[in-house]
C-alpha cells in the first residue's frame, strides 16, 4: 500500500505513458467498427423495420419466450437443488476414493465442447442409450423420450450443476474451522449444520450463481438446437438462428435480437460481474471434522453422489467408451476429419490470440485510467464496453457481418474469419475477467521500479509485464481458444457442408445418424480441446500453478 502511494506521488517521466490511450482506443475502434458495420448492414438489408413489440402479438413467439424463460428457470432450479446436496456430500466426505476424479469431471464440464457433451448425453439417456438398455434388461418400460424439455434439462444440468457445486464447495470450505469445532461441541445434527452454518454462507452465492446459470440457459443454443427435438421446443436464440437460416427473414431476426437483448441484457451484465471462472486449482483445503460426517448421513450423501455420477460422469465416460469402440482407424484416416481440425485450429487460434491481445490492450489503457489518472469510472466504463458485447446475440452480429461482406462479394471466403471474429468478441469478457486484477497488481507493485529504471514501452512489456503475467495470460489464451474450438454457434449459420469446423462436423454426423463414426469424432474433439487447453495453459503459463509459488 505504502509503495503504491509513493508511486503515485512521484512524477512519472512525461514520455513513459504518453500513448496510454492508444491500445484501448484501438480495441474500442475495432469493436465499434464491427458493431456499427454489422448493424448498418442488417438495417440496410431489412426491407422494412419490424417493431419488436409487434412480435409480442404473435402467439407462437409468445410461446417461444415463455418456453425460453420456463426451461431456463427449471434448469436453474434443478442445477441449484442438486448442487447443494452434492457440494455438502463432497465437503462432508473429503477423502472417499474417486473424489478427485469426480471433481475433475466437474471442471471438464466447463471446457468440454457442448456438442461432445450432447453426444455423451444421447449415448446415456437416448432411446437406445445405457439407461434404457438397463431398464429393458430389467424388464422395465423405457424411460421418457430424451428429445424435448427432458433432454434440454438434462444437458443444462450437466453443464451448470458442476459449476454450481464447485462454487458451493468453495464456499463451504471457506467456513472457519472454529465454526465446526463449536458445532462438534454442541452436537449439531446435519440439519442444524445446514441451517446455522452452511445456509448463511451459501445463500449469497445462491442468487449470483442462479442468475448466471439462468442467463446461460436462457441463451443456450447448441443444446436446444440438438436436443430440442423440433419446432415445439424453441428458444429465442434458436428462433433468431431460424429466422436467418430457415426463413431468411432479416427484419424478424433483428426484431427478435432486440427482444433478446431486452430480456437477457440486463441479466447478462449482472451475471458478468459475478461470473465465476473455472477454478483450475483447488483452494487450500482445511481438513475439518464435521459433527454430521457419521453414518447417519451416508445414505443421503451416497444418493447425492450417485446423481452426480449419473448426470455428469456417465455421459463423459460414454464419450470415451463409445469413441474407443468406434471405427477408430477408418475415422482417423478420413481426410474430412483433418480438414475440419485444421479449420478449427485456425479459427480458434485466431479467435483466442485476438481475444487475449484485445483484452490485454484494453486493460493497459483502463489500468492507466484507474491507477495513474484515478479515473476509476472511466476505467470501468472502458472494461464494460469490452464485456458489453455479451448482451448482443452472436447470430445477429455474425449475420450483419456476413451481409456486410457479402455486399463486397467476398462472403464465403470470409465466413471463417467472420466466425473467428465473433468468437474472439465472445471470449473477450472472459479474458478481461482473468487479466484485469493481475494487470493492476503488476502496475501497483512495479510502476515505481520501472519508472526509476526508465523501463517503458516494448521493453517494459517484454521484461516486466509478460513474464509476470505468464499465468493469467496463459489461462486467458487457453480458455478463449478452448471456447472457440468447441463452439457450435455462429458456425452453424455459415458452415453448411464444404468447410465445417470439428464441432460442426460432429453435429452433421450426429444428424446423419452415423453414430459410430460420430463417436470417434466426439472423443477426438474432446481430447483435442482438453489437450489444447492444458498445453497452452502450461506452455505459456509455466509449470503447474501450485508448484509455481
Amino acid at each position, binding site marked *: 500500500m505504502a509503495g503504491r502511494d509513493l508511486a503515485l506521488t512521484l512524477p512519472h517521466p512525461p514520455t513513459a505513458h504518453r500513448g496510454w490511450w492508444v491500445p484501448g482506443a484501438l480495441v474500442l475502434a475495432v469493436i465499434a467498427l464491427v458493431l456499427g458495420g454489422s448493424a448498418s448492414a442488417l438495417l440496410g438489408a431489412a426491407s422494412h423495420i419490424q417493431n419488436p413489440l409487434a412480435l409480442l402479438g*404473435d*402467439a*407462437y413467439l409468445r*410461446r*417461444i419466450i415463455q418456453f425460453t424463460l420456463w426451461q431456463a428457470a427449471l434448469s436453474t432450479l434443478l442445477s441449484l437443488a442438486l448442487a447443494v446436496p452434492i457440494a455438502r456430500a463432497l465437503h462432508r466426505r473429503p477423502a472417499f476414493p474417486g473424489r478427485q476424479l469426480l471433481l475433475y469431471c466437474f471442471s471438464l464440464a466447463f471446457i468440454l465442447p457442448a456438442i461432445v457433451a450432447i453426444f455423451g448425453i444421447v449415448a446415456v439417456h437416448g*432411446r*437406445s442409450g445405457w439407461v434404457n438398455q438397463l431398464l429393458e434388461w430389467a424388464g422395465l418400460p423405457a424411460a421418457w*423420450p430424451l*428429445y424435448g424439455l427432458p433432454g434440454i434439462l438434462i444437458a443444462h444440468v450437466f453443464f451448470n450443476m458442476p459449476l454450481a457445486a464447485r462454487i458451493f464447495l468453495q464456499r463451504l470450505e471457506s467456513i472457519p474451522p472454529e465454526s465446526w469445532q463449536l458445532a462438534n461441541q454442541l452436537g449439531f445434527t446435519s440439519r442444524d449444520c445446514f441451517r446455522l452454518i452452511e445456509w448463511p454462507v451459501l445463500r449469497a452465492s445462491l442468487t449470483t450463481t442462479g442468475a448466471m446459470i439462468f442467463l446461460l440457459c436462457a441463451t443456450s443454443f447448441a443444446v436446444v438446437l440438438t436436443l430440442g*427435438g*423440433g*419446432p*415445439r421446443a*424453441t428458444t429465442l436464440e434458436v428462433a433468431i438462428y*431460424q429466422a*436467418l*437460416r*430457415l*426463413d*431468411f427473414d432479416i427484419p424478424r431476426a433483428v426484431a427478435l435480437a432486440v427482444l433478446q437483448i431486452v430480456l437477457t441484457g440486463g441479466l447478462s451484465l449482472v451475471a458478468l460481474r459475478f461470473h465465476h471462472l473455472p477454478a483450475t486449482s483447488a483452494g487450500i483445503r482445511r481438513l475439518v471434522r464435521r459433527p454430521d460426517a457419521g453414518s447417519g448421513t451416508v445414505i443421503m450423501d451416497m444418493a447425492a453422489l450417485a446423481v452426480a455420477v449419473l448426470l455428469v460422469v456417465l455421459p463423459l465416460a460414454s464419450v470415451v467408451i463409445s469413441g474407443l469402440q468406434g471405427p477408430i482407424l477408418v475415422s482417423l484416416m478420413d481426410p474430412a476429419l483433418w480438414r475440419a481440425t*485444421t*479449420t478449427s*485450429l*485456425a*479459427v480458434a*487460434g*485466431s479467435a*483466442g*490470440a485476438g481475444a487475449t491481445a484485445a483484452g490485454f490492450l484494453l486493460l493497459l489503457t483502463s489500468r492507466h485510467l484507474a491507477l495513474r489518472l484515478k479515473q476509476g469510472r472511466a476505467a470501468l466504463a472502458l472494461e464494460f464496453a469490452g464485456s458489453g458485447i455479451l448482451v448482443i446475440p452472436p447470430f445477429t452480429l455474425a449475420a450483419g457481418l*456476413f451481409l456486410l461482406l*457479402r455486399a463486397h*462479394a*467476398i*462472403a*464465403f471466403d470470409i465466413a*471463417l*474469419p467472420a466466425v*473467428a471474429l465473433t468468437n474472439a468478441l465472445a471470449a473477450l469478457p472472459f479474458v478481461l475477467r482473468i487479466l484485469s486484477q493481475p494487470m493492476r497488481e503488476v502496475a501497483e507493485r512495479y510502476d515505481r521500479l520501472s519508472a526509476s529504471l526508465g523501463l517503458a514501452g516494448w521493453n517494459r512489456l*517484454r*521484461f516486466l509485464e*509478460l*513474464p509476470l503475467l*505468464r499465468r493469467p495470460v496463459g489461462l486467458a489464451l487457453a480458455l478463449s481458444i478452448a471456447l472457440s474450438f468447441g463452439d457450435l454457434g455462429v458456425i452453424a449459420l455459415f458452415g*453448411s*457442408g*464444404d*468447410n465445417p469446423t470439428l464441432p460442426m462436423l460432429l453435429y452433421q454426423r450426429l*444428424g*446423419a*445418424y452415423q453414430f459410430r463414426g460420430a463417436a470417434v469424432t466426439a472423443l477426438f474433439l474432446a481430447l483435442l480441446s482438453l489437450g489444447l487447453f492444458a498445453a497452452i495453459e502450461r*506452455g*505459456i503459463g509455466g509449470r503447474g500453478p501450485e508448484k509455481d509459488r
Partner: protein
Amino acid sequence: MSITTRRAALFAGAGLLALTAFAGAPARAAEETLTVYTYDGFNADWGPGPQITKAFEATCGCKIKWVETEDAVSILTRLQLEGPSSKADVALGLDLNLTADAASTGLFAPRSGELPPLTLPVVWKDPIFVPFDFGYFAFVYDSEKIKNPPQSLDELINGKGDYKVLLEDPRTSTPGLGFMLWMKALYGDQAPAMWQKLNARTLTTSKSWSEAYGLFTKGEAPMVLSYTTSPAYHITEEGTDRYKTVAFKEGNYLQVEVAGRLKNAPHPELADKFLAFVTAKDFQAAIPATNWMYPVRDVPMPDSFNTLPTPRKVLLTSPETVRDNRKAWTAEWLDAISR
C-alpha cells in the same frame, strides 16, 4: 530472457499458423469445377451423386463439386443468404412447389434448349427449371409393428391406433413442405386444427428427410413421411417387403424435383451442359435405383417398382399459390404444432 523470447515466438507461431491455414485452403486445379448445391441425401454414398459425378466428369473434362445442405428447402435459403455472390453454378433438388418462389428471387437464369419428351404426370412449362425425377409423398410403415395401417390421411389423424409418426420440417425439407401443402389442400382453414390433432401422433419433426428416415429404420417410430417409392429400396437392396405404403383415399401429393442454373454462375456454359445432362439417359438411368424416385425419361426400372401402389388421386398446388402463401402457411403450421 530466453523464456520470454520463447513465449513470444510461441505467440507469433500460433498467429502464423492461423494465417497460413486461412490462406492455403484451395489449391486451384487446372480444369474447371462445376459447383452444384444439393440436399444431403442426393450425394450420400447410397445416393445418385457418386454415379452421376462419374458419368458427367467423363464427358465434360471438368470436376463436380457438390455442396450439400441439410435438405432441399435449405438450398434456396442458402442461395438467398449468399445472394448474387454465391459460388453455386447449379441448384439441384428444389421441387415444383418452390419454382415460383425461387424464380421470384431473381437469382436463377432461364434454361436453354429444348427438353426431350418427358414421362411426367404434368405438362412441363416452367421456363427456368429442368425436372429430373418425381414421386408421390406417402407414409411408409413397418408392417411388423403396424398391422392395420390407416387407409386415409383422415384415419391417420383422427383414427385410433397407438403408433407414432416421424415428420419433416417444411422450412428445411421438401417432403415437409409437400406435406404442409397436402394438409392445406385437403383441409384448408381446418388445417391448423388437424395439425394440432396430429401433434399427439408426432414423435418428432426432423429437419431433413434423411434424418427422419434414419430414425424410422432405426425403429424409433413405426411410420414416417416419405414416398410411395421408398419400399422399393428395401425390396431391391435388402430383400424385404417389411416396409410398405398405402395409397390414401384422399389421394397423394405429387413432387417433381428440379434443377436450375444460377444467373451469376461462375461457369454458365458448363452449368447449361449439366442441365442438359440431367434429362439425358445416363443421368435418368441412375435415378430409380439410387434416388428411389420415378425418372422423367423412359429408362429400365428395378422390378421392385412394379409392387408399388399408384395414387388414387394426384394432389398438387400451383407454384404461384405456394409462392404467395408459403410464409403465412408456415407461420400457421408453426403456431399449430407448438401449442
